């Protein structure tokens, strides 16, 4: 034996990350985020153990907790699916938050002011809500295709416009007659309420639509000609030009769909949960931004958004439990979101490596 070798494994660059390594590193990122997040509990003089226990009790610990998680999963799922399509085409739609609000605004108009017969209310709300979100997203899409305006900035800025539009409506022309000092609209007629599962607050229509779209979106990307074009534009715009693929069409299409699904999710929130239009922060809880992480963690795969949106739904309801039981501000959830995204991005490269364990004999042979 010559030199002594301590290393019994080595790390090598694998040419293609396997699904297993992607899953492993995604989980690792989440675990690391929680480990770091534990420090927050210490700031509030709460032992991390108690903190986490409350957190899991509140998100998955009971049927009620589970239903609260599911309730928050639905908008994340719908929005996340749309963003997955957009991200696949390298169209960076950061404006889902505003698109959700536009959907909610359109639904509110239908429910309170359209005067449609009751049986037409819900269908019209969802159709107009979809179109309102899609239309809101088409504005930056057209600016991108016509004048090459960067969509990250324009979609982000339109969020504030949408938020202020809602504030104007609920404080001004749409302010409810019986709400006195509060700023929100009147309650929708019951015909404009979505049916929920049993005694929970989970509307099953939007949940089923979300799951159906996840499956449909998966096959659309994988098997359809348009989905193929979308992926080509996303991974190599140069080649798309070489092939004569109409890039503008793809940008408009993905913005239309992702905006539309966000609008649809917005309808689900006002028709299924609030039954009125209220402060933008209450309608959306930042779903439009959290869905960006949902889509990212799912590697822009619509099917995987089912899992990732559930995960973030649990995070939101767990955060709610922390606020109620331990008096920790709800914003802590944003810290967790941020940490998860941070660790995801930093472990992204690692998923390209493989750890190879050498058996002891081989090590000795090499060392001699």
């Amino acid at each position, binding site marked *: 034996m010559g030199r002594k070798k301590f290393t019994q494994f*080595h790390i*090598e660059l694998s*040419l*293609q990350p396997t699904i297993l390594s992607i899953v492993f590193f995604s989980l690792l990122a989440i675990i690391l985020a929680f480990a770091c997040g534990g420090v927050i509990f210490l700031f509030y003089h709460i032992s991390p153990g108690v903190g986490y226990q409350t957190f899991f009790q509140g998100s998955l610990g009971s049927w009620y907790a589970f239903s609260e998680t599911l309730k928050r999963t639905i908008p994340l799922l719908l929005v996340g699916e749309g963003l997955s399509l957009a991200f696949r085409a390298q169209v960076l739609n950061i404006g889902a938050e505003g698109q959700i609000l536009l959907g909610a605004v359109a639904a509110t108009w239908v429910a309170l002011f359209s005067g449609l017969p009751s049986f037409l209310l819900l269908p019209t709300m969802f159709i107009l809500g979809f179109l309102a979100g899609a239309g809101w997203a088409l504005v930056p899409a057209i600016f991108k295709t016509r004048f090459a305006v960067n969509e990250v900035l324009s979609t982000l800025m339109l969020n504030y416009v949408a938020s202020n539009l809602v504030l104007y409506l609920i404080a001004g022309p749409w302010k409810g007659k019986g709400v006195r000092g509060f700023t929100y609209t009147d309650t929708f007629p019951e015909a404009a309420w979505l049916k929920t599962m049993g005694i929970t607050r989970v509307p099953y229509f939007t949940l089923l639509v979300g799951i159906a779209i996840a499956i449909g979106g998966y096959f659309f990307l994988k*098997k*359809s*000609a*348009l989905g*193929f*074009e979308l*992926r*080509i534009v996303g*991974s*190599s715009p*140069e*080649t798309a*030009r*070489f*092939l*004569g*693929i109409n890039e503008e069409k793809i940008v408009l299409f993905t913005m239309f769909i992702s905006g539309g699904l966000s609008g649809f999710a917005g309808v689900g929130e006002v028709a299924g949960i609030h039954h009125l239009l209220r402060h933008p922060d209450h309608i959306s809880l930042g779903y439009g931004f959290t869905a960006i992480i949902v889509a990212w963690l799912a590697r822009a795969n619509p099917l995987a958004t089912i899992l990732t949106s559930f995960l973030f739904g649990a995070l939101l309801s767990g955060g709610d439990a922390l606020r109620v039981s331990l008096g920790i501000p709800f914003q802590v959830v944003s810290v967790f979101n941020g940490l998860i995204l941070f660790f995801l991005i930093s472990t992204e490269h690692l998923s390209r490596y493989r750890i*190879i364990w050498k058996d002891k004999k081989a090590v000795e042979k090499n060392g001699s």
Partner: protein
Amino acid sequence: MSEVENNWEKRPAEVAFRSITKRFPPDILANDRVSFEVKKGTVHALLGENGAGKTTLMNILYGLFSPDEGEIIIRGKSVKISSPREAINLGIGMIHQHFKLIPTHAVAENIVLGLTSIPFFFPAEKAEAEIKSLSEKYGLKVDPRAHVWQLSAGEKQKVEILKALYRKANILILDEPTSVLTPQEAEELFATLRAMKEEGKTCIFITHKLNEVKEIADAVTVMRKGKVVSTILPSQVSLEELARMTVGKEVISVVPRKTISDKIVLRLQDVSAMGDRDFPALLNLSLSVREGEIVGVAGIAGNGQKELAEVIVGLRQASRGHIFLEDKEITNLLPRDIASLGVAYIPEERNQGLVGEMSVAENLLLRGYYQPPFSQGFWVDWEKAEAYSEKLISHYQINPPLSDIPVRLLSGGNRQRVIIARELEQKPKLVVASNPTAGLDVSGVEAIHKLLVKAQEKGAGILLISGDLDELLKLSNRIVIMFRGEIVGEKEKEHWTEEDRREIGLGMGGVRR
């Protein structure tokens, strides 16, 4: 033993490799007991196919990799080089294939970058005089105050060489230095290398171009599959022998078809077009290609060849003039429509023709996915596509023969095969090929030539744009010379002679006859 060989043996070795072995787990043996000597004051060529282990060996010498076994001896001393900094201290400089310069900085700033002796303010000022004297001595003319982004590839290379010389390099490693150069720039590089030799400096020159070995090298080491085949003096071997040593078997050159029908496939009539910088790139250009004819377009890169190809396939607007495919006018049609009328395009940038992240099967379907038999409209029949790609992979000998791996994992030659397979399967009437063999090794080049000649035999007209005059002389039935957006000369021949080569070379430089 001849006198030359005797003297050769007696010359002192600057670098000696002793049984260098390098493995890349799990089972790639990149270098297998590599031993040879590089004599002081010589240009030593390292010849081999892609993947022969040349670059790995040089990365070991430059301290980027450490060898598993063996030792490196520099000027008689065994050394252990564990980082590029140590290599630089030993007087080793490396010019990589892809330049490592900072585009927004001036030439002089790039040259002094990273040196510990430079002042904090105006770091490059003092160095300018020395850079000037170095550039005069070795014929490396660059303005030290110019910014790197303003420079051509050839000039950037000069900056890299200056950088190494400024760091007192005695051993210069050049990794396929001519692959980015025009023929003129390559001549200038060779002059520089000769000047360095005079000064007693040693150059190791990685290449897979045989004629370069003959032209510049004093000695050549041929590598194949990680092993040294032989180290010899170029004067003692023929090009054919060198080719056989690199490839490992006899290389049989294809012969293009010599008889051509007079049916015209492509006709350009007074076509003008703008270049990328809104500068006219094509000026009233007229050209035709007949059925089964290979028309070579000679010229120094940047004289409108790229724009010519793009204007034909619809990627660039013609500002005036007409383009006909057979009798149909195709001027300024959409690229997809032109392709479906029977125009295949092999682009200069390989990445333009492929989606690296997508599988081989998907890349083979990039032309056909939206039309029968693969699609009736919305859905794509991926099972049919799979079978189709299996067929193409075996027919065009794409290696490794797997249809589901991302195409970026294939070697350059195999990626080019994927493009050619896809384009030729459209049964084109016209093939526009832009530098189709750039960067490929000997067997890769032969394979691509074979495919082009096969398309010619099937009756396709081929417009072959190439910066490699040897390639044009080998394949073309007719050669046109482009200079500043115009065709300045044209020749049709059955066999090309040295006289023709000289004449075309002059035409490329703008000398009209």
